[in-house]
């Protein structure tokens, strides 16, 4: 590597890309700090946690910190809010920026009071010395933070934390609970028009016909047409909806290629790249091979299914395009919007406004291009584009289907001596900003259509389809293969935890099957193969908390355990599930033990883990996108049931505090292990293994019949 790259270590977190202190923090005369972040609130409570970090390092009360919503014209570019990385990326940068800012402010105060820094008493922004005082806000001027963040400034030691590590109420929840306007769906701009996009519910290649002369649009609605992209604009929202229906009835579309009937078999025969991502060989160990076991697992396409369908507002103003979006990556979105619309990036401003929970790459970015195209036809008036429920289900990307095959050999002592894991899947990311062409739906419907980029996988160690495919267990012989399928029968992209959900489901189900062969308790079997003491600690903690060893057998009841370290880089999470299996599976109780390193907001971590576990229970028991020959056939909640209040299990979370270890994200840690713990509990209850998700009554009956 070049001398330049080695002469100076990479700055931590997002400081590498945004090194200026003024990019992160501004002081306001009324006694508050504005803190900037490129990460966005998607219901996970990140702005609350980042404000805690800022207040802690500045040494002021949490109420003095105001987090500024991301905006491409003022915020640091921190890429996408994904991968449970916001605490690492943004939190690390903000922590250092705030430590530097505090040092500068105290320096100024010392000069102003004409005393050495050592003689100052500083509390909540007020600086005192020998009866005289000043404040941070009196000392600051607009140039103070106009410098690079100094990474060598000492940080507050975690032992002195007063705000970080304490439960903080979310700053955004009082508005949301009171129903005050806060979501993008609630935004109103002067003279705003209502818009809907018009697409068939099935995949199409192009618009085959639309007789505009025969269309009878309600009220003042107007049709916007650009190639195969159709939309409607109206003064009133219900008129736009009626116009959408009318245009849908009058439009004819050329069908896309049919979708394969058996997706998992199809995936296995359409891989174009076969990559060995981990290989270990120990011939001596192979001499001990006793029994060998093989099993095939599968996960279906899963929807993000936000309760609020995607929405965007766009306006053309003075040669610029302004877009308000609930995208997870406003800079990447700006880049793809500019590409699709033939504009320069500096002519496009994207502002983040909170939306419904997103759970990964849903329709938010696509809706932004739809809104922009319609805004170009609105004569400078702002346009509010709202997707309907079927737009979201039919057109937002799905979490990819996966096929998995595992085999392993166990020796006489009950230890795994050889392990093989192969997976077949489409890519797990078609997010904007990463391809030669825009990844937004409407880009491939324009008069000069862009090719639709194939979903890709990010490289290991985080990985995507192969996220968590490499087991954390110590196996002397090991081979893990990722078979990448480029062609997409259904548009796929990142769904919370990406491939980790399918891989951990398979690995941890298979570990139980092997524990059965080894006639060993599943907890002991896992501990036997682990060297990582943090991994052992969460498994031991969950076994203790769930009273694993004191289980009392009952008819139809079972319990199961599972474990993963998210991405093999992040949070450690072990889960015990207790189920009752009758006509269907009822998850009665989930117990989780989690290690996220330093805990910023304990209640925030609990909320994310509880939510992740419950959402995973829903995926695992109920969720699969229905397909027919034309594509997605789940267009409403009746065709895509999710877990209801009465079906939600009791959830207990134990947090293992590690104040001296780096803080990592919590949002995606529970998904994989929860699925496997439930599947293991079902197998324990029935004596029959179900290897295809979701664990519906039909699947369970057919597994029993096959036995």
């Amino acid at each position, binding site marked *: 590597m070049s001398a330049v790259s080695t002469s100076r270590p990479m700055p931590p977190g997002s400081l590498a890309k945004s090194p200026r202190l003024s990019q992160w923090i501004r002081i306001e005369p009324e006694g508050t700090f504005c803190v900037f972040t490129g990460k966005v609130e998607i219901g996970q409570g990140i702005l609350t946690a980042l404000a805690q970090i800022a207040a802690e390092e500045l040494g002021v009360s949490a109420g003095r910190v105001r987090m500024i919503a991301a905006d491409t014209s003022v915020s640091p570019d921190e890429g996408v809010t994904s991968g449970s990385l916001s605490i690492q990326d943004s939190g690390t940068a903000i922590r250092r920026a705030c430590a530097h800012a505090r040092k500068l402010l105290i320096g100024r105060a010392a000069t102003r009071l004409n005393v050495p820094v050592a003689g100052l008493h500083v509390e909540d922004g007020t600086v005192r010395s020998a009866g005289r005082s000043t404040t941070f806000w009196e000392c600051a001027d607009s140039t103070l933070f106009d410098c690079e963040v100094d990474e060598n400034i000492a940080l507050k030691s975690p032992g002195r934390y007063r705000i970080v590590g304490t439960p903080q109420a979310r700053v955004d*929840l009082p508005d949301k609970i009171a129903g005050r306007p806060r979501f993008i769906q609630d935004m109103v701009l002067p003279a705003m028009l209502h818009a809907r996009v018009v697409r068939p519910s099935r995949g199409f290649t192009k618009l085959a016909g639309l007789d505009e002369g025969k269309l009878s649009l309600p009220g003042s609605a107007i049709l916007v047409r650009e190639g195969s992209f159709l939309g409607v604009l109206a003064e009133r*929202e219900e008129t736009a909806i009626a116009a959408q229906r009318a245009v849908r009835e009058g439009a004819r579309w050329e069908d896309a290629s049919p979708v394969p009937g058996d997706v998992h078999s199809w995936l296995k025969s359409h891989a174009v790249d076969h990559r060995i991502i981990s290989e270990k060989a120990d011939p001596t160990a192979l001499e001990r091979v006793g029994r060998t076991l093989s099993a095939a697992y599968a996960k279906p396409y899963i929807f993000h299914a936000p309760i609020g369908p995607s929405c965007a507002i766009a306006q053309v103003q003075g040669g610029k395009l302004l877009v308000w979006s609930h995208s997870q990556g406003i800079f990447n979105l700006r880049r793809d919007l500019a590409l699709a619309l033939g504009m320069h990036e500096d002519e496009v401003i994207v502002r983040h406004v909170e939306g419904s929970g997103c759970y990964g790459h849903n329709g938010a970015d696509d809706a932004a291009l739809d809104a922009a195209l319609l805004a170009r036809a609105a004569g400078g008036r702002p346009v509010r584009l709202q997707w309907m429920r079927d737009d979201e289900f039919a057109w937002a990307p799905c979490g990819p289907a996966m096929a998995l095959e595992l085999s392993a050999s166990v020796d006489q002592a009950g230890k795994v001596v050889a392990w093989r894991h192969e997976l077949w899947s489409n890519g797990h990311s078609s997010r904007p900003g990463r391809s030669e062409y825009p990844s937004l739906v409407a880009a491939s419907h324009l008069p000069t259509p862009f090719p639709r980029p194939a979903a890709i996988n990010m490289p290991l160690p985080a990985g995507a389809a192969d996220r968590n495919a490499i087991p954390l267990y110590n196996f002397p012989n090991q081979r893990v293969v990722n078979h990448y399928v480029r062609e997409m029968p259904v548009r796929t992209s990142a769904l919370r935890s990406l491939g980790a959900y399918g891989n951990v489901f398979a690995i941890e189900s298979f570990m139980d099957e092997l524990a059965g062969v080894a006639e060993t308790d599943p907890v002991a079997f896992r501990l036997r193969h682990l060297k990582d003491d943090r991994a052992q600690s969460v498994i031991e903690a969950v076994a203790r908390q769930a009273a694993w060893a004191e289980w009392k057998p009952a008819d139809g009841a079972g319990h199961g355990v599972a474990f993963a370290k998210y991405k093999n880089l992040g949070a450690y999470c072990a889960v015990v599930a207790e189920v009752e299996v009758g006509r269907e599976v009822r998850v009665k109780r989930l117990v989780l033990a989690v290690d996220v390193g330093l805990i910023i907001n304990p209640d925030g971590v609990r909320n994310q883990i509880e939510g992740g576990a419950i959402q995973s229970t829903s995926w695992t028991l109920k969720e699969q996108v229905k397909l027919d020959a034309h594509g997605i056939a789940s267009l409403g909640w009746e065709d895509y049931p999710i877990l209801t209040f009465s079906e939600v299990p009791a959830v207990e979370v134990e947090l293992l505090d590690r104040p001296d270890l780096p803080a990592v994200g919590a949002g995606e840690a529970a998904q994989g292990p929860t699925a496997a713990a439930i599947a293991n509990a079902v197998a324990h209850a029935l004596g029959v293994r179900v290897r295809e998700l979701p664990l519906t009554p039909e699947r369970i009956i057919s597994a029993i019949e096959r036995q």
Partner: protein
Amino acid sequence: MTETLRLSVNGIQREITAAPETPLLYALRNDLHLKGTRFGCGSGQCGACFVLIDGHAAPACDTPLWAVAGKAITTIEGLGEHTLSRAFVDEQAAQCGFCTSGILISAAALLGRNSKPTETEVRAALDRNLCRCGSHNRMVRAVLRAAQAER
């Protein structure tokens, strides 16, 4: 055809000029600027748009304006500083908060007819509301806490 329709919303008589078949949701959100009632599915299956109509939780997205003439409509804004809202904040009973309004409405309807619900009754009363973030248990605790506080 548009008509002038009279509605009683949060105890106030309001006039709206719209087609009588217009879903109540759009009159509330766009004419009366009551944005707390959310659009979720448009077919009464998710509960995000629930309002109280004569005390019963009902979806505003597929209730036409003509059907609510003369009835008392209460939206999330009409609940005001309700014990339920305080309990939801105290329990931090939300993640994204998009479904929350509809859930508070269902809970208010429940507490209106049953001041001492059991946990099972609370869950059953909320089964018509979907939550995607997995905040269910916190919400159930919040409703039970509010019921306790009312006593």
